[in-house]
């Protein structure tokens, strides 16, 4: 699945205000909600669900990235938000290091295959050092959007 098919570009935050995990999740879910992608009155519920999932096992899997996610019936399609932090967020990552790039993914409750296809695209690129570096160097939402769209057509990025 291409980034352009599931990333909500209005919910791309080039500099997160939050310094910790729950703050970053709250900020990203709120951005998706503001973009109208979560239906009415679901913002808090979804934020809590993502944090609950994160408490079960950290999605901060090292190399400065985290991919918090949850399946929720509020969404009919997979939707993602992207946040960057130049100072780093304390995300309780597996390697105990700060997280600089957060990709938040909300997937429908009844479409496990779509969830996996979005994850495939996210990790295909996040595991490449070049992509992580470009993401960290991005300073505006437009630069992040360009990078994701470039990655859609350039598998080696």
């Amino acid at each position, binding site marked *: 699945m291409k980034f352009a098919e599931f990333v909500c570009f209005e919910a791309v935050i080039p500099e997160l205000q939050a310094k910790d995990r729950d703050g970053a999740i709250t900020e990203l879910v709120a951005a998706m909600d503001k973009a109208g992608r979560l239906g009415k009155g679901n913002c808090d519920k979804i934020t809590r669900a993502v944090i609950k999932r994160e408490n079960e096992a950290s999605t901060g899997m090292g190399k400065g990235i985290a991919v918090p996610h949850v399946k929720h019936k509020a969404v009919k399609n997979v939707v993602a938000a992207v946040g960057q932090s130049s100072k780093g967020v304390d995300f309780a990552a597996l390697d105990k290091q700060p997280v600089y790039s957060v990709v938040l993914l909300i997937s429908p409750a009844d479409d*496990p*295959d779509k969830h996996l296809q979005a*994850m*495939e695209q996210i*990790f295909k690129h996040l*595991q490449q050092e070049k992509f992580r570096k470009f993401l960290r160097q991005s300073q505006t939402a437009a630069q992040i959007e360009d990078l994701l769209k470039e990655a859609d057509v350039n598998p080696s990025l």
Partner: protein
Amino acid sequence: MWTGDTVQNTVCELEVEIKNADGLHMRPAMQFVDAASKFQALITVSKAETSVDGKSIMQMSMLAATYGTRLKIKAEGVDAAEAIEALRELVEVTKFGEPTPEEKSRQMS
């Protein structure tokens, strides 16, 4: 025949099928990585032409192994056979402790 102290390097390969409804999402992928990491053997997991390190959570997460996907597990090392058996059991027998599609639809109804 005694060949001296050459390190025995067994190679084992097996195809397994994903049987839990939600497929190899992050939690099962982590279980797989944890199980694979208990062995010395090098573990490679392949889906079609994509091959990844079975001990790397990031690489395992990019397999997008949905329900019904067939994966090839290759183990190379002294404990390759044990590794393959443990991983097969995790994927096909305990199914990561998750329901099959039939069990899941029964739970939902």
